[in-house]
């Protein structure tokens, strides 16, 4: 199970900026098991968003957001609500946010931070990856993870080795920041590229004791 933590509502509202109409997608897998997601949490989050002055144009649960074909199929059924939305909020691990962002041409924002994959990793789609950094930045990067797509895991844009969309490491490897740049440009969010990123706290990758001392952690991570 992927271990996740809820992002503070203040951070979520901050990342949504002026986007008013929101569609909320929840994963019925790990986040429900970890009690950071699931139908009840998604309903609570929708209430918090409304209290924060946002309009929720629809919500849906998908089991599981790490299955890209399923994500495409289920989101297809919500096409009208998605069209009406300014942005999508995704209650899942980083993989689910990236899988959704790859399917929808709207800004997709994470509602959770992914900390660890204790045991079961979920289904693994083709290109989306999550290193469980614990400080999800997908809001700013158009739903493409710079930590996993950039060969140097840079947070502040492409380095001097990125040319014509490729990485300096390998000729046929796409530059992660080039992909992010293209996506942000298409979303009209290029200003995000200019935002200075704080340095990472690598301590966030360690699952806190409060999580490790739970029964569900024991069920997932311990051998009996």
């Amino acid at each position: 199970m992927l271990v996740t933590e809820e992002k503070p509502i203040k951070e979520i509202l901050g990342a949504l900026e002026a986007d008013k109409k929101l569609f909320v997608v929840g994963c019925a897998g790990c986040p429900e098991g970890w009690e950071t997601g699931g139908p009840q949490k998604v309903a609570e989050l929708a209430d918090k968003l409304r209290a924060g002055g946002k309009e929720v144009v629809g919500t849906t649960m998908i089991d599981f957001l790490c299955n890209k074909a399923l994500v495409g199929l289920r989101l297809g059924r919500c096409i009208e609500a998605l069209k009406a939305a300014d942005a999508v909020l995704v209650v899942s691990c980083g993989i689910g946010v990236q899988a959704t962002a790859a399917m929808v041409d709207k800004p997709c924002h994470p509602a959770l931070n992914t900390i660890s994959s204790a045991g079961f990793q979920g289904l693994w789609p083709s290109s989306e990856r999550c290193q469980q950094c614990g400080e999800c930045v997908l809001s700013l990067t158009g739903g493409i993870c710079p930590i996993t797509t950039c060969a140097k895991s840079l947070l502040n844009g492409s380095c001097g080795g990125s040319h014509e969309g490729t990485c300096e490491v390998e000729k046929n490897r796409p530059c992660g920041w080039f992909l992010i740049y293209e996506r942000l440009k298409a979303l009209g969010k290029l200003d995000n590229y200019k935002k200075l990123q704080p340095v990472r706290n690598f301590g966030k990758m360690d699952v806190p004791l409060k999580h490790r001392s739970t029964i569900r952690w024991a069920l997932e991570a311990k051998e009996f």
Partner: protein
Amino acid sequence: MSRLQQELEAGRFVVTGEVGPPKGIDTHELDHELEHLKGKVVAINVTDIQSAVMRLGSLIVSEYMVRKGFEPVFQLTCRDRNRLALQTELISAAWVGIENVLCLTGDHQVLGDHRGAKGVFDLDSVSLLQTVNLLNSGKDLAGNALAGAPKLFPGAVVAPGLEPMEPQILKFEKKVAAGAKFFQTQALYDPRQLEAFMKKVEQFKVPVMAGIVLLKNVGMAKFMNANVAGVFVPENIMKEIAGCPKKKLKQKSAEIGGRLVKEMKGMCQGIHLMPLGWTDIVPDVLGHAGLA
């Protein structure tokens, strides 16, 4: 305050040079290279494990230069050190009288001679610039007070030849916001490239020094075109070197370099010459450019 800072802040045109520390502890070549640059340039960059090839350290060579009366531009990359080590290097540099620091992300380790090395990249060029300014203000990255703050002059790099250019400009702006006080560019061989680039960055009012790598032979030019991102030696220059007898290559290199400097000097606030060992022709380059 460093002379580089004084000159740039006074709005004067500045020429800097560059030396690469040796792979080993024989520094005779380095001494010769430095001698040729004496009095010809305002400051001299010291590359930091450039191209990810292990060699003598940039901090210790910069310190050596300070003792010998040269002004170094201490290059510091994020590939090999975490935030503890980077901050330590920065305050150590300030303590021994080094003032200019050029903040870079660093080439990926697979481009060098220790391909299996672990890349660190705890910080990047932007957060390293922020760190320099934080240390200058008397605090470290953890928010703790320093017993004596450094007064470092931070600079950054930019590659105007990279495509697409827009993300480069966005990153340039980000580096300015992070506190970059001057820029040196990747090698340029086409003044039009610099002209187009300067139009985009003039608004930020930060001095830009155009970079020129002195060409040693046609093979080197071909290698850069094929392998160095954003560097392009045009056909006419390739022909010029290809048609030059081996004995006259240094003379030709100085001529081409001088011509490029002459063409570019009106567009920016300085030139950063990267002679890759051929510092002996730097006086000729400057002569051809009308800067001697």
